[in-house]
């Protein structure tokens, strides 16, 4: 489904601040796989995600999604194949627009945007039905401004938006990092349910080793812009958080000061 070959990108090339963010990433994700991606700060996780969505265009290497070479496609064009949920709850939704308008924007993703009314009763019914599964009562607040919702509610709506239209893959960029623990658990459960139901190919970046093993079918670790660990199947299911933390330390070439920081 997703095939990444030797992806490289360098920021600030030929300057003192040169940063080789991605140094030849190779990754092949089969249809229906749920991959969790871990790595320390600056490992290139977010850069990799931005390259997949087209927010960044890589210097070299190829990305194919659903058999299409999308390496040079801009973000808007790729949106027919990939949908994403941002880390920042404020980034994935439009606070100045109402809940139904936000959903309507997502409803037209990958479709031609015409001069028909953005909101009509058919769409409203669909939005209500999709929102009702959240059990947050948002289905009765369709005309409220998005800005009135909490961060967790907005991330939940972002997830609904990301899967409103059929899409080839779902990219989650630490989408629970900014939430309180209760909301974090809620959004993660919701994520898992949606992925299970739709069987959509999913990449989830996370900072939590626990989440990385608990969810998904495969775990990939990035370090200095490369894939340094790739586990799935038996090997993965027998893995504990401690094993993962040890490996994490090994690739960093150092013992971590406080493992507990990563266990959360």
């Amino acid at each position: 489904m997703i095939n990444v070959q030797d992806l490289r990108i360098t920021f600030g090339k030929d300057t003192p601040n040169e940063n080789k963010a991605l140094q030849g990433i190779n990754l092949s994700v089969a249809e229906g796989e749920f991959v969790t991606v871990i790595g320390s700060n600056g490992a290139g996780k977010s850069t990799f995600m931005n390259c997949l969505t087209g927010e960044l265009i890589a210097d070299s290497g190829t990305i194919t999604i659903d058999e299409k070479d999308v390496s040079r496609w801009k973000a808007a064009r790729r949106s027919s194949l990939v949908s994403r949920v941002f880390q920042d709850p404020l980034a994935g939704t439009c606070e100045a627009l109402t809940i139904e308008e936000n959903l309507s924007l997502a409803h037209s993703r990958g479709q031609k945007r015409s001069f028909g009314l953005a909101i009509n009763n058919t769409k409203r019914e669909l939005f209500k039905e999709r929102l009702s599964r959240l059990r947050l009562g948002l289905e009765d607040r369709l005309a409220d401004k998005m800005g009135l919702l909490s961060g967790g509610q907005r991330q939940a709506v972002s997830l609904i938006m990301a899967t409103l239209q059929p899409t080839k893959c779902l990219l989650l960029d630490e989408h629970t990092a900014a939430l309180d623990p209760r909301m974090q658990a809620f959004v993660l459960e919701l994520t898992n349910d949606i992925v299970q139901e739709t069987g959509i190919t999913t990449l989830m970046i996370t900072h939590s080793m626990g989440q990385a093993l608990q969810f998904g079918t495969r775990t990939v670790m990035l370090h200095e812009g490369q894939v340094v660990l790739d586990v799935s199947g038996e090997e993965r299911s027998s893995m504990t958080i401690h094993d993962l933390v040890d490996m994490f330390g090994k690739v960093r070439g150092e013992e971590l000061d406080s493992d507990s920081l990563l266990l959360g």
Partner: protein
Amino acid sequence: MNLIAFMGAIELGLIYGLIALAVFLSFRILDFPDLTIDGSFPLGAAVCATMIVSGFNPLLATVISFFAGGMAGLVTAFLNLRFKILNLLASILTMIALYSINLRIMGRPNVAIITEETILTPFEGQGLPGYYLKPIIAAIIVFVVAIIVARFLNSDYGLAMRSTGANQKMARAQGIDTNKTTYIGMALSNALVGLAGALFAQMNGFADITIGTGTIVIGLAALIAGEAIFSTRGMLMAVLACIFGSIVYRIAIGLALNADSIGLEPSDLNLVTALLVTIALILPGAKNPLKKLMKRGN
């Protein structure tokens, strides 16, 4: 303030309502502070007056003025999107260039069309005095345009444009080509200003190189007045608020200038406008389209 002055204020208020609508589109919807309209307003007037003097159909001249304004908006958007020139600066560059272009179009600083045929001509001589006729014609045109704009903003494409100004990254993630929506929005905004210029020239019987000065401030004043007085929930209400705000603003200015006790002269208009807008921006709670400009960065 006598009846003729009052009707004159309504007529001007309606025409400048189109400008308030344009400012709403650029400042509010696209989050693009656009000063091009100081140039595209006289551009619309110049194109329309020159075409009418040259014998073209006044309706055609009005339509061409609409598109001429749209072209000016495209130039500003092009400078900003293609060359990454700061949006405010890009619009100033277009505005200053338009000064020369407008002089070229007219060939002189002022073109009189008071004796020529205009879009008003077919309705004249039907017993309705000009000071009633002009505001009525202006009202019909302006409200039809306003309703079309409101309907557009409520469409799928209009919603895409609104999300472009509100959250570009999210808009792109939803498959919206934000460059394209910005081009179209800027073209539409300035096209409305071009149309306002054409109406102004035909109602007042002339086009002049200086009529553009301060257009943006008047537009902002009308926008702020509208949002302060009227509810802006929903696009139709927001759009109508621009036009009613403009009319209220014109009547207020007219009253101020006509009150002998204050001692203001018509030439004080720009000073009064600047003061009003300043007060509106300073007042707590006032929605402030300029606040973005005061912040650093983009």
